[in-house]
């Protein structure tokens, strides 16, 4: 399983990267390589040129910016796991990261790589969609951004066109105090691609009423989706039956069948895991200031 031949270049700037990509449709970006290189080894992908961006400082780092956390595209997944800033500001992402591959793939794999790969069951895209993150893209025209749920179009398909380079992910931060998150996943083995993954984030007021809530499901259809949980907003969470809400939202979801699981399974699991994730988020939010369970 040796890759077909290709050229290798390591430009010094993002601008140069975009130039190269625009000039050669068959050139591809390589960052962590954890997803791309297996495809090259199996000759499922045959780029003429690999453009290595992983050392570009301008695409690296985790910083706070105007109520959001901006994660540079080539930031390694393990760096986010170990970041104190990310831990404080993005608790949902922190819960998702241990499910991304294994420790050795997280040591090299990048946040941007996971986003650009757009696997329907990938955890980082799920969190991005759930939180309404923005994907920042650089090309010869400069930097633009678009909401995650517009960026992800289908299975392994995003809005990028030749000449684009995913530059960063901007995750909104919820700064309210009574915040809770929940993340659940089912896969054949711990480190496999999820059959279904659920990510939830909830904020409550002092009286235990829900101020804001989001729930996302990955792995069910061709891309991660946010589920409409607006019925929860304003409600007294102690009296709300989450499972009914989640089940009715998931029972007619578009779902895929494959070698390992049926579409019906995905829908069923989505209902259960979505309920659990939301339930965990609510419980965590309630515990956030010692409220009775």
């Amino acid at each position, binding site marked *: 399983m040796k890759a077909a031949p290709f*050229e290798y270049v390591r430009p010094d700037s993002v601008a140069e990267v975009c130039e190269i990509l625009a000039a050669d449709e068959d050139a591809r970006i390589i960052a962590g390589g*954890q997803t791309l290189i297996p495809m090259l080894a199996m000759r499922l992908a045959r780029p003429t040129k690999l453009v290595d961006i992983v050392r570009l400082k301008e695409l690296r*780092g985790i910083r706070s910016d105007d109520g959001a956390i901006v994660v540079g595209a080539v930031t390694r997944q393990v760096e986010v796991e*170990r970041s104190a800033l*990310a831990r404080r500001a993005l608790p949902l992402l922190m819960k998702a990261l241990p499910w991304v*591959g294994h420790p*050795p793939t997280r040591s*090299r794999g990048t946040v941007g790589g996971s986003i650009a790969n757009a696997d329907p069951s990938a955890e980082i895209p799920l969190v991005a969609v759930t939180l309404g993150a923005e994907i920042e893209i650089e090309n010869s025209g400069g930097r633009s951004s678009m909401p995650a749920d517009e960026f992800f179009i289908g299975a392994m398909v995003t809005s990028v066109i030749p000449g684009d380079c995913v530059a960063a992910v901007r995750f909104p931060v919820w700064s309210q105090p009574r915040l809770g998150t929940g993340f659940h996943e089912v896969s054949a083995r711990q480190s496999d691609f999820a059959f279904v993954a659920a990510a939830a984030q909830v904020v409550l007021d002092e009286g235990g009423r829900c101020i804001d809530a989001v729930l996302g499901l990955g792995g069910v259809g061709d891309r991660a989706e946010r589920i409409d949980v607006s019925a929860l907003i304003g409600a007294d969470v102690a009296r709300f039956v989450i499972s009914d809400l989640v089940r009715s939202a998931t029972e007619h979801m578009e779902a895929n069948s494959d070698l390992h699981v049926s579409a019906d399974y995905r829908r069923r699991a989505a209902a259960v895991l979505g309920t659990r994730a939301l339930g965990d988020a609510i419980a965590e939010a309630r515990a956030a200031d010692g409220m009775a369970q």
Partner: protein
Amino acid sequence: MKVTLKVNGRLRTADVEPRKTLLDTLREDFLLTGSHAGCEHGVCGACTVLIDGEPSRACLMFAVQADGYEITTIEGLAPAPGELNVVQDAFCETHGLQCGYCTPGMILSAHALLEHNDAPTRKDIVEAISGNICRCTGYGQIVEAVELAAERLRQTNVPRHVDGTRPNESLGDSTTTDAPKAAHTPHGARR
């Protein structure tokens, strides 16, 4: 392309096609045959090496990407010819291997864990080796080896990065811009 890699503390040069993986370069150009090919698509972990102290799949890296890092292979662990380090010896004591094919990768993953966690729980160990598939042992005696090595290391005076910091960042990578890096403290310090 010519490439200069730092392997087990030494700079080594090879002239390779861009498509040649780090694994193949280590094995063929540097004759370091302790890292093994099991699947060549990043699942089995038999090719595991340490890149700046982090377990990484050598089959998922091209040699041309690997300059500027500290690469450690199994050959870099033994303190001297014919001697074994604490982790290697623990694997011999509990018989944490049979055919030996996954073993170099497994030991490097264990070694990396113990550099940063001097009292790993069974759960920590299982997670740390979860990227290394073994078909012989069923993992039982491997977990025992890591537990034994942890216990022995706790009793020695070997400095480790037990406060959770990483060893020196590689020459090529930029650092993250958040929390300042804590200084490397010798074994005995607690987080």
